[in-house]
């Protein structure tokens, strides 16, 4: 296989890795916020349920969760899952897993806000929702950004776990080319691809952090 073909194949795999990455962030960031609300809720059952959810998501390997989400419908209900479910399953598994981590990050940010801010907002006549949206949440984002960057970078590397469902993302492709070529060169190229993508994301997150560093 010519080097250019290998690059092209891995590039296509990279696009698939990036789509897992982007869709996972799109779903898990909002979902995580709702989970963190549940986790901090005054309702005992909701709070308990979210605690259990986070505990399971963080306490079991993501690879096993991928298998569970994909094959679950068959093993549990004997359902015929057909051919189109693979990518959906990957996005569901990644999103619910990352939402658990993001929820705890949000919680750390929200709980770090001083009660004085809520009191002041109340005196100024802010409703509960606008207190959160206009005063608390912007500060939370600023405060949790470094932790979020951590998770986001981990996510890029975790997309390679989709190989366990044989989805043709970059790591799966690299493995296949390595088998065909009977050498490990594709892994080296894949490593460079991952590194460059990560460096880019880290750079963008740093810019974002800087743009938010008002008041300091």
């Amino acid at each position, binding site marked *: *296989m*010519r080097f250019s*073909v290998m690059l*092209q*194949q891995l590039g*296509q795999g990279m696009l698939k890795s990036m789509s897992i990455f982007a869709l996972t962030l799109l779903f898990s960031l909002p979902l995580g916020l709702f989970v963190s609300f549940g986790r901090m809720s005054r309702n005992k059952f909701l709070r308990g349920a979210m605690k259990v959810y986070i505990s*399971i998501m963080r306490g*079991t390997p993501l690879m*096993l*969760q991928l*298998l*569970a*989400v994909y*094959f*679950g*419908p*068959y*093993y*549990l*209900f004997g*359902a*015929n*899952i*057909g*051919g*189109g*479910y*693979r990518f*959906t399953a990957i996005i*569901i598994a990644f999103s*619910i897993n990352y939402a658990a981590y993001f929820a705890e990050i949000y919680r750390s940010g929200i709980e770090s806000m001083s009660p004085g801010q809520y009191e002041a907002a109340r005196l100024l006549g802010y409703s509960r929702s606008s207190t959160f949206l206009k005063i608390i949440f912007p500060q939370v984002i600023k405060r949790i950004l470094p932790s979020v960057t951590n998770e986001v970078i981990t996510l890029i590397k975790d997309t390679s776990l989709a*190989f*366990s*469902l*044989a989805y*043709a993302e970059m790591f*799966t*492709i690299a*493995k*296949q*080319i*390595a*088998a*065909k070529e*009977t050498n*490990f060169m594709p892994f080296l190229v894949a490593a460079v691809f991952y590194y460059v993508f990560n460096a880019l994301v880290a750079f963008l997150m740093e810019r974002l952090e800087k743009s938010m560093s008002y008041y300091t």
Partner: protein
Amino acid sequence: MKKQILVSCLCLAMTASLMGGMSVCAEETGLNTEGKLVVGFDAEYPPYGYMDDNGDYTGFDLELAEALCEIEGWELVKQPIDWDSKDAELNSGSIDCIWNGFTMDGREDAYTFSVPYVNNSEVVITAENSGISSLADLEGKIVGVQADSAALTLLEEGGDQADLGATFGTLQQFADNNTAFAELMAGSLDAVALDIGVALYQINRREGYVILDEYLNAEKYAIGFKKGNDTLAEIVNKDLGILYENGTFMELAEKYEIADMVCLAETLGLGEAATEAETEAE
């Protein structure tokens, strides 16, 4: 089994909405989706199924499947799978068959098979200078094998070569043969047990490795369908006959250098056509 139980338990714990994209089995052809044959294969298994120079999936089995789909007017979907998960993939309906140098011996109860079409053997590769020249020399050595493969079944407890397997120092499992071979080269393995077709592909591309003269067994490849899916198996059997008669089968066997291993003629009772096709191919 352990994996299945773990997976099931985890599922019970997760009550997320998991139902999506379900389809119902078609009656007349036994396909999961009418007009579409989804072939599950290990894309790291040359020469039967792998990625070619252009980045497309190809191989003896996949080209054969392509030819079969042409006869039936089906669309072929080449679905790479993780070899560990092949049962779950097949039973859950995400693929229609396992068609990828798939050993039928010892698996007869777990799948519905097509007629066998290739004579396979499980063999052992070692480095030329390893000092290992017979199966007996493997005593106390570290031997690598693909997880969930026929070679593993053979060497594990209950397999036909279990006594031999018991003499090994360690029987180390790998997700794919390429990794096992890399370990062999790096010296962390003394030998790798695998299918002869794949072994030939590996050693022909490298210097200094040999296949031991003693084979572990003789067995056959067939196409595996979900247990009880006789409808699809019968259609495929009929088409294999057609592909043999019109010479396509032997042509592909020559192309992938496994012509002296195929056995479709004997299983179909078509001895004479075989010689004709061979002379044609020459």
